[in-house]
Each structure stands twice: as C-alpha cells, then as structure tokens.
C-alpha cells in the first residue's frame, strides 16, 4: 500500500518557522500609555467618538474589573502585569474599504501571511484586525444588498446604534468574569455581524487578527446576530509575530442565534509563545436554532477558552469541537460548556488535544441540564495524545443533571504514540518524524476536516511545523 500523494505532500510541507514570526515597523497614530485607569478609558471613548452610554458602560465595567479577583482555578496567570500593558493603539484614523488605501508596511505583513490573494477569492468579506482596529473591510456587494451588516464593532456602534444597544453585553455581561470585565472596559475592534431574517450567507465571513505592537493587548469585541431562519459562518484566524515580553489577548465574543437560525464560528489560533489568550465566548440559541463552535488552538503561552452555548428554547442544538496543541512552555486550558435550559435540546462536545515537549493541555467542560429540560441528549468525547513523558494532559469534565428524562454520555481516552504504529510506518519508508507527524495528523483529522479547505491546509502546515524536530 503506497502512501497517498496528498499525505506525502503534507509531510514535505514542513515549511520554515521564521515565516510565521516576523514583525513589521508601523507608525501608530495614537497609543495610550501603559497601565489602566479611568482617564485612559475616557480617552479611548473620546478617541472613538462614542455615545455617552458606552462610556458609562466602560467605566462601570472597569469598576467590576477592579472588584473581581483573578480566577483561582485553571492555568497560571501570575505572569500577567496589568500595569505593563498598553490598552489602546490605533494605526490610522479610519477603517478603509479598499485594499489600495491600506498602508504599505501593514500590507507587507499581510502578504507574508498570504492573506489577500488566497482568501479574497474564497471569502466574501475581509476584516483585518491590525493593532486594535479594523483597517480593512470589504463586503461583497450582494451581501450588502441582502441587508447583511459586516463591520468593525467600532463602526457598528455609530452606524446601527439601536441594533447595537439592544444586543451588546446581553450574552456576556461585564460581571461574568474578570477578563470579560476588562474587555468591556477597554474593548476595541472586532466584528459586528447582523444577518436579517431568512438570509443565508453562503461563503464564510472572515477576519484576520494580528498583534503587532510590543506589550499591546488585543481586546476585540465581536457581536453576531443571526435573525430568524438565517445562517452565517464566521472564521477568525490568528498568526502573531514573536515578541520578547508578554502580551495579553482577552476577547469577548457574543452570538445570538434566533429561532431556526444557524451560526458556525470557526477559530484557528497560532499566537506566539508569550501571549496570554483569555477569551470569553458564548452563544445564546433560541427555538430550533443551531450553534457550532469550531475551535483550533495552537501556540500562545496560556490559553483559557471555553466556548459556551446556552440552549434556551425548545429544539435548540449546540456543537463544540476543539483541537488543542500544547508545546514546550505552553498550557492550553480549553473545553466547552453547554447549558440545557429547555426540552428537546441536544449537544455534542468533541475535544482533541496533543501535548508535546513538556506542554500541558487541559480539557475543562460542563454540561448542565436543569429540571424540566426533558428529552435532552448530549455526548461528550475527549481524546488526548501525549508525545513524550514530560508532557501533561488533564481532563476535567463535569455533568450536572437535574432532570430524569435525559441521555448523557461522556467518554475520554488518553494515549501515546505506539511503538508498533511507528515501526509499521517506518518499515514503509517514512522517517520517525514523518511517521509521528502522520499519526498526529490522523488524530487531528476528524476536526481539521470540518474546516474550510484553505484553513485545513494551513492548519495541517502548522501541525507539521510544530512536529519538526520533535522526534530524536
């Protein structure tokens, strides 16, 4: 049996690490001083020309942030120095629609990532997050005609104040956790999407994120509203350049899936090894709505991220699939949460994690069924692959069931790469590294398969990159 051509190609695409860790010199028009106080928040709000209610919201969230303790569970966050973070940087005054208007050095950075050519053809609109603000936004004309709104969150507050105010902060209030409060106080950038009733957005909408000023935090805020019977797929991908001191990325993503609507939110992250990635993501699903989180986490120093779904009305469905790869010095603390608050709701959580070179990956999940939520079905599967004896893998699932008429199943396995599998592949002419890469890819494939094609290729390349030099 020959190795399929595709696999061979994938195995040779190990690439060059430096391609993903470069930085471009940029001129920032406004950068706040390091540290945080109420005056900085006022200044952010003033710079953005925000309405009074948003400033009040920010100031209130800042109070909540100060009042909340750091989480005592999960990953080690002691390395975060809130006073050494710049909370707002803005590269230019307005976000631009045309690619030609984007400054050259910023374009160079994107070109190195291979964004415009490849993605433009495939993706309907592009929002590129570069230093806290959307600088590039294009939306295919037919989408605009259908009434689909796809803007930076900063623009949306001005252009669609009523819609914005109605939903902003309703799924994740500032009091949810310390980092949601921080985001609420200093948020900047992110995407705002509104899909009107019955409209199906055929192509995925996409935004590319980059952190590019040393010590600069990213606090983007995304709000997606899928009105009744509509559907949309949003893709977020990140590749950050390597920097010497720690960065904090603390986003908030709120999604509202109305009756009969469907939302898929896909994330591929490859933060550099010094980023704290502490993200709060939650979706509210109404009657017969469907929410799907697809979450792939590579890189970062610490990731704490548990996409959640609240199944609020009858017949709602939720699915969370995640892939985590923890390498040396990294802790991927990821998972998912589903709250069944209504009858006939169902959910699936599938988590796959890989730990290597002393990396630590954690699955942390919760399935909750309240009393009266009859005929609930849920399935949780977590698989872990450990590549060496220095690595660590943890699983913390919790199932809290207050209703009798349910079917809840959970299973988990932990495995290492077997000598037999390696031997078999090596006897077929693969090197040990190629064989290990092949096994890792096979393990991750059920998740990768769900990604849009170009992202699947990119993720396979990143996995192969991660595996380079991992054996021997």
């Amino acid at each position, binding site marked *: 049996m020959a190795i399929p051509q595709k696999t061979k190609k994938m195995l040779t695409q190990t690439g060059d690490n430096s391609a993903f860790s470069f930085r471009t010199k940029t001129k920032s028009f406004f950068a706040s001083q390091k540290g945080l106080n109420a005056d900085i928040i006022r200044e952010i709000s003033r710079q953005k020309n925000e309405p009074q209610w948003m400033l009040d919201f920010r100031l209130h969230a800042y109070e909540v942030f100060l009042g909340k303790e750091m989480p005592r569970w999960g990953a080690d966050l002691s390395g975060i120095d809130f006073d050494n973070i710049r909370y707002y940087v803005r590269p230019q005054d307005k976000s631009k629609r045309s690619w030609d208007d984007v400054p050259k050095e910023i374009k160079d950075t994107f070109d190195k990532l291979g964004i415009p050519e490849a993605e433009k053809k495939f993706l309907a609109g592009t929002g590129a997050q570069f230093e806290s603000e959307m600088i590039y936004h294009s939306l295919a004309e037919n989408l605009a005609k259908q009434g689909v709104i796809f803007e930076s969150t900063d623009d949306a507050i001005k252009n669609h104040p009523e819609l914005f105010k109605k939903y902003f902060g309703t799924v994740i209030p500032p009091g949810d956790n310390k980092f949601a409060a921080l985001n609420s106080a200093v948020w900047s950038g992110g995407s705002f999407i509104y899909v009107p009733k019955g409209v199906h957005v055929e192509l995925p909408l996409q935004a590319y994120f980059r952190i590019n000023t040393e010590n600069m935090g990213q606090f983007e805020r995304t709000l997606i509203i899928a009105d009744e019977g509509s559907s949309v797929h949003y893709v977020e991908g990140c590749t950050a350049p390597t920097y010497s001191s720690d960065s904090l990325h603390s986003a908030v993503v709120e999604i509202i899936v109305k009756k009969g609507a469907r939302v898929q939110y896909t994330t591929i992250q490859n933060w550099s090894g010094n980023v704290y990635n502490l993200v709060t993501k939650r979706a509210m699903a109404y009657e017969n709505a469907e929410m799907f989180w697809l979450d792939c986490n590579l890189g970062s120093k610490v990731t704490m991220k548990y996409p959640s779904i609240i199944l609020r009305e009858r017949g709602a469905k939720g699915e969370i699939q995640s892939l985590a790869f923890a390498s040396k010095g990294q802790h991927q603390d990821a998972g998912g949460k589903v709250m069944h608050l209504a009858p006939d709701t169902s959910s699936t959580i599938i988590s796959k994690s890989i730990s290597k070179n002393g990396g630590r990956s954690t699955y942390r999940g919760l399935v909750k069924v309240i*009393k009266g939520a009859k005929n609930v079905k849920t399935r949780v599967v977590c698989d*872990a692959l*450990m*590549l*060496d*004896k220095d*690595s*660590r*893998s*943890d*699983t*913390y*699932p*919790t*199932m*809290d*069931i*207050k*209703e*009798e*008429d*349910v*079917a*809840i*199943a*959970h*299973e*988990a*396995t*932990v*495995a*290492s790469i077997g000598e037999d599998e390696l031997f078999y592949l090596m006897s077929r002419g693969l090197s040990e590294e190629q064989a290990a890469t092949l096994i890792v890819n096979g393990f991750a494939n059920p998740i990768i398969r769900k990604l849009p094609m170009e992202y699947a290729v990119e993720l396979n390349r990143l996995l192969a990159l991660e595996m380079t030099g991992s054996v021997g």
Partner: protein
Amino acid sequence: MKKILFLDTIPDKTIILKEDEELLVVGLITTGWSGIRNLIINAKGRGSHCQCIFFILGTDSSSFDAKIQAIHSAPKTQIKARIRSALTDKSSCSVEGAWSIEKNASGADTYFSHHTLLLSQGASAKTAPFLEIKTDDVKAGHSASVGKVDEDALFYLLSRGLSEQQARAMMVQGFFETELAAIDDEEIKNKIREAVTTFLAQTKN
C-alpha cells in the same frame, strides 16, 4: 492473594497499596449521608492493583456525595473504579473522581466510570471524572453517563410479553449485572442481586 473489602458505604478513608498488593473493594450502598465523603486510594507500591466497584441504590431523599481520589505514585500500578447508581424519589448522587498519574508512574493503567440511571422525576446526578496525567506511557480512560431506562429496549421487552414493571426491573438488574462479572465471590454477588430486588420492590409503585 487478592484481598476483598466489602463495604456498605463510601468511607472517609485513605488506602495505601504496597508493592504487588491486589485489592478488590466492593461497595453495596443503600444508605446515604450528609456532607462529602473522601476516599483516597494511593498506589504507592510498584505493581499494585486496586479495583473498586460501587453499587449505589438511592431512595427517598438520600444523598450520596463523594470524592474519590486515585493517585498512581509508582510504576505499573492499576487503579480502576466502576460506579453504578440507580436513583429514585428525590435521591441524588454526586461523585467527583480525581485521578492522577504522577511522573514516575510509567505503565500505569487507570479507568474510572460512573453510570447513573434516573428512575424518577426529582432524582438528580452530578458526575465529574477528572484526570491528570503527567507522563505518557499510560493507559487511561473514563466514561460517564446519565439517563433513564432506554425506551426502545423497554418497548422490545414489552413486545415480548413482559409487563412494564417486569421489563423495567429486568433492565435495572441488567444495568448492575454488567459489573458483577468482575467479582469472583458468589456470596457477595448474591447479596447485591438481593439488594437490587429489594430496591425494585420498594420503587415499583
């Protein structure tokens, strides 16, 4: 020589396993308690094996709240726990299984399962099978489920001429019977079967 420990509760206790020690813990638990019980099993001796099988039969408003900690702190150790609980009335069962495999415990083989049958509206269950693994040469798995008697299977039995009561009883017995296979002691097996029968007689109406 395999030792058997036959209990009627989950005790507040620390069990330390010596080299090559083999222990089977069987719990037939029908009386609840208040607060949280803490059972710790530490496989300190190389090659030690421990298997725990707990049968929990909950009635009235009894509560079974326990934390079971299993620590693999030597190579080639095995700690396996299987818990089956059937709950009626307003009884509740909450088990946190905290399994950890330490760095030196290569060749560890570990398993934790907690399956719950909820037999009445008002019964509730919480299960949290935690797993911390600090080395790679291990076999580890866990599984958990919460649900009611399977409607399809029930329908099948009814179509074979059984009354609903008989069919339900048969399915609850079957739910526990799967774990009895691991117990060699006939006397203990019969005690468990009897307890299940008594439990079913109490809950039939």
